[in-house]
C-alpha cells in the first residue's frame, strides 16, 4: 500500500515537470520563430537555411584552394579540412571569413585585432585577408608535425589561391585573383 506522502510527491513532481516542459517548449518555439522570421542564425538559435541560396548562386563568386610546397619542390594538396578535422564542413567558411577580415568586423574584436585596426586607421584600410598568413602558418605547422625535419615531404611554404568563378562545365576559364603565401 502506498502512503499519503508517497502519493502526493509524484503529483508535485509531475506539476513541476509539466511547468519545466512548458517553459522549454516556449523557449524553443519563440527562438525558432524569431530565427525563421528574421532568417538569421544567432548562435544557438538556428534559422534552417540549408541550401537556401539557390537563386543567389551565379557566376563571379570566389573560391579558394590551399596548397603546400614540399622541401623537394613538389606542390602538395594539404587538405585543410583534415588538418583541423573538428571544423570539417566549416573550413571553407573559416577561409572566406578570414579573407574578408571577418574577425575585425566585430563590435568587440580581439584586443590584437583592435590594435591592428587602430594601426591601419580603420577597417577599410586593412589589407584583404590580413590574418590569412597566420592561418597558413598554423596549417603548415600542423601538417609538418610528425614529419622528420630532413624529410623531403616536409612543407617549406603554404599558399592560398583565390579564384573567381567564370561559370561553365569546368574550371578552365576561372581567374586567379589573389594569392597569399608564407614560408615556414
Amino acid at each position, binding site marked *: 500500500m502506498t502512503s499519503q506522502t*508517497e502519493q502526493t*510527491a*509524484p503529483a508535485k513532481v*509531475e506539476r513541476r*515537470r509539466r511547468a*519545466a*516542459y512548458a517553459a*522549454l*517548449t516556449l523557449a*524553443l518555439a519563440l527562438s*525558432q520563430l524569431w530565427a*525563421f522570421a528574421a*532568417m538569421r*542564425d*544567432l*548562435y*544557438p*538559435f*538556428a534559422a*534552417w*537555411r*540549408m*541550401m*537556401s*541560396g*539557390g*537563386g543567389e548562386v551565379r557566376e563571379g563568386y570566389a*573560391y*579558394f*584552394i*590551399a596548397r603546400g610546397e614540399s622541401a623537394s619542390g613538389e606542390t602538395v594538396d*594539404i*587538405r*585543410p579540412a583534415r588538418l*583541423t*578535422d*573538428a*571544423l*570539417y*564542413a*566549416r*573550413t*571553407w*567558411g*573559416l577561409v572566406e*571569413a*578570414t579573407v574578408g577580415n571577418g*574577425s575585425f568586423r*566585430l563590435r*568587440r574584436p*580581439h584586443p590584437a*585585432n583592435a590594435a591592428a585596426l587602430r594601426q591601419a586607421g580603420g577597417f577599410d584600410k586593412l589589407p584583404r585577408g590580413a*590574418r590569412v598568413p597566420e*592561418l597558413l602558418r*598554423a596549417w603548415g605547422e*600542423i601538417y609538418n608535425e610528425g614529419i622528420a625535419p630532413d624529410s623531403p615531404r616536409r612543407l617549406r611554404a603554404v599558399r592560398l589561391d583565390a*579564384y573567381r*568563378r567564370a561559370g561553365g562545365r569546368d*574550371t578552365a576559364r*576561372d581567374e586567379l585573383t589573389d594569392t597569399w603565401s608564407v614560408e615556414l
Partner: protein
Amino acid sequence: MALGVVRAGVSGVFLVSVLLTDFTNLGRLPVTLLRPAGFMQLLPWSLYEAVMTPRGMFSLMCGTALSLLLSTAGWLTPATTKTSALLVLFYQGLLRNLGHFNHDEMLGVYYLLILAFAPCGDGFSVDGLLRRGRGRERLSEFAYGYPVLLMRALMAWAYFSSALIKLRSSGAGYFSPDTLPALAVRHSLDNLHDTQFRYAFYLFDYRAYTTPLVALVVAWELLFPLALFSKRARRCLLGFGVVFHVSTLFVMNIFFPHFLAMYLVFVDWRGVAARLRGWRGRRDV
C-alpha cells in the same frame, strides 16, 4: 525506456564524434581568427585565449568526452545530461566562431538541451540499474513521452521551415534548372570541403531533370511534419531523408551525419525492445 535509449543515442553520437576529432590541432589556430556570434559574444576573450591552445582544447575534449560517456551510460544522469548539453553547446559555438553557422549538429544540440530537462535516466541507464529494488516514483507516460515528441517536432520544423525559407528567399527561381548545378558546383571547386567529389559537374548534362528533383526535395521538406502523425509516412519520409543526405555528400560535398543520426528519435524503441524480447524468447525455446 524509449527516452533512455534516445538519451544514450544522442549522447553517444556526440561522444563518438568528440572521440574521433583531433581537438589539439584546432587549438593551434590563432585566436585572432575567432568571430564570436550570438551568445558566444558574451564570453570574455580571456576564456577563448585559455581554450584555444592545444592544452586547452585537450582539456575541453576530456571534459566533454567524460560527461558524454556518463550521460550515454545514464550515470548521474540529472547532472551529466546538463554538463553534456553545456559543454557541447560551448564547443559547437566555438566551431561556429571559426567557421560558418552550419546546421548539421544543431538539432543534436537542441536534443541535448531537451534531455537535460527530461527524466531520461529512469530507464536504459546505470542510474536505473542502481535504483532497482530500492523502489522509485514512476512518472506519467506524458513525462517520458513529451520530450521525444518535442524532439520529433523540432526535426519536422527544421525541414519544413527550411523549405519555406528557400521559397521566401528565392521564390519560384529556386526551381530554375540552374539551381542544383550551381549550388553543387559551388561546393565542388575548392579543396576546403571534407570530400572532393566532382559529380556536380555532370549535373549540367541533366538540367532537364534538376527542376523536378529540386521540387521533389522541397515537397519532401514541406511534407516532413506528416512523420509526426503517420507511421507509413514516417517510413517514406525518413527513407527519402537518408537517400537525400547521402546523395548531398557525393553531389555537393556536404554531409549532415549528426542530423541523419538524430532520425533515431523517430524509431519506436518500445517496439524494437518487444521484438528483441520475442526473438530471444523464441531462441530460448
